[in-house]
């Protein structure tokens, strides 16, 4: 065992590098929904309106553009999206009646 002691440090650093790489890649994939507060906003069947009218699509695109360019921050973006989805859901319920 003593003969292989010299391998400990290189092994430690290789593991260290692999861990650091894994952590970086993992963080890149993290999204707000991973923290459980929000459901997946664009994938959940329940809250996604079945048919999104064209003008709603424009509104959604505008929201995304505003967020991307910094006009909206993430909190405002979330708020606007929630409003949009709520409105769409109500519309879907009304249409179902």
């Amino acid at each position, binding site marked *: 065992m003593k003969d292989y002691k010299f391998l400990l440090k290189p092994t430690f650093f290789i593991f260290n590098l692999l861990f*650091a790489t894994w*952590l970086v890649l993992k963080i890149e994939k993290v999204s707000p929904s991973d923290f459980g507060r929000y459901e997946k906003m664009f994938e959940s069947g329940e809250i996604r309106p079945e048919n999104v009218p064209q003008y709603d699509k424009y509104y959604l695109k505008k929201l995304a553009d505003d967020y*991307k360019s*910094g006009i909206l*921050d993430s909190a405002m973006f979330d708020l606007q999206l929630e409003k949009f989805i709520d409105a769409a859901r109500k519309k879907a319920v009304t249409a179902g009646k």
Partner: protein
Amino acid sequence: MKQFYFSKFDNRKPYKAIPDNKYRTLLFQFFGIVTIALGFSYICWRWSHSLNPDALWFAIPLVTAETLSYLSTILIVINFWSYKDAKKSAPVHYLSEIEDLQERTDRPVRIDVFIATYNEDVELVRLSIIDAKKMNYPYADVPIKIYVLDDGRRDGRDPNKQNMKEVAEQEGVGYLIREHNEGYKAGNLKNGLQHTNGDIFVILDADTRPLPDFLVNTSGYFRNRKLAWIQTPQWFYDTTEAESLSNVIKSKLKVSNKFITKPLDVLFGKIEVNEDIFGNDPRLFYDVILRKRNYYNAAFCCGAGSFHRREAVMSLALKDFAEGLKKRHRELVHEDAGSTGAIQQKKELLSHQQIIPFKFHASEDIYTSIMLHADKDNRWESLQHPDIECKMLSTQDLDSWIKQHQRYAEGSLDIAFKDNPVFKKGLTFWQKVCYFNTIWSYFAPLWILVFLLSPIVFFFTLQLPVQAYSFEFFKYFLPFQIMNTITITLGAWGIATKRGDQYYISSFWFMLLSLISVVRGKKVQFNVTPKDKANAKNTQHIMPHIIIIALSLTGITYNVILLLLGYHPTPSGFAANTFWTIFNIIDLSVMIRAAKWKGSDE
């Protein structure tokens, strides 16, 4: 005997060096690599995905500043990588233990102690002489000679000056002077070396008081025949003591009514402030930064409290002398070898060529260290000794503190611009990295200034340097920052870094002035640091701090009004920048407090 302000601190005990721990070192290395990886990921994301295209004039300087700062982080991880303390051994007795005799007869080693002075109070120097005389050594036949190297020529010729020579004679130590001040402290040491013959010698400043076991604990290292010098930590034993916040408030408000003072004691009695208000405690530097450079054989000399091998500095000096002679000779031969005038000129030039053991420079200590480390023929080694072996006085007012640090900055930057160690032949790769780290730290005001101004720019333009302070931003930023904090804590384990961090930020202004001064080619001045309280005007040093704090507070107020009126476009931007600017204000305020600090006894 004369009473000084620091007499009350005489009983202070030095701190113990942080013990090396291999598991903590491994943990640091693990976190260090993770920090570098996360930082790399953050910086890549910042450049590729986060820049606000509508405000590139703002986004680009900030991301550049972050990138430069990230380079500092990498250099810190490299610097903090590992301890490598040398094995302590018994004090040396005979010359053969530290040098090859080369047919000389063996004899007890000779030790000299130099106390360099210029204009300091002679009674202050007397204290250093008395403590130097008290130094123990186990071998009675080892001669230990103490010399006062007085560059102020206070030998009694000028009745307006104190008589240093008289004090030296009263104390029974040697007294050496010269008739000029060429080379400042380095020239003074050169003069000392010319008139003495110690095999190893200690350098002390006028206010450096060695502890009794200085020589016993350090001379044994010279058994390593490659060791050129040992630097011991500089311990400032007169730094300001912590005061309770309630006492500070009471004295500022001048209240003595117990109905007011009692609640103040209950509320603020346990909060302590003003400890080491000038950030003089250099423990992080000596116990971590310099000590860990032993790992790369790159610990440099800092002057006072260092112990040198004469052979090392003299071999370097002789080498420089020979090279200088050769160069001048070549120049003259090239000009006009035959003429009588040229021959005369040649003689004169050759006679002016000097043997200079310590480089004539405002930062003679670090410059000489670079030259010794780069000596390919001898491959000299250096050592940062972990334990405190002497005590010194710190600067007692902000103006002196700034002048002292300005000299360090200008000296190091001057070396960087004129004889950059990165391009120096003979230094190893890691030595170059360590010296580059030292120089790089003096460029910090370039990015600190951007960090200080960015929140202000946001408050008044409402433009973000990033596309948004979104989840994306924080998912890259926070892991890096958190990991960085853990890494620094592990690297500087056991040492409070708060004051150092504050001064790192609040030193931006004088550091920037130093940088500009060196870039403009201004000659670096060697000024002796005053160690008593001077009545200097400090306002000039803190005016930029006051302006930045005032602009920050005005900006916050303006943004709060916008928020209340519902006009603020990015509340999260406001929150992030307010948080950031509060840190800036806390850091900047330390220098303002230091400028106004008058001491507890005044």
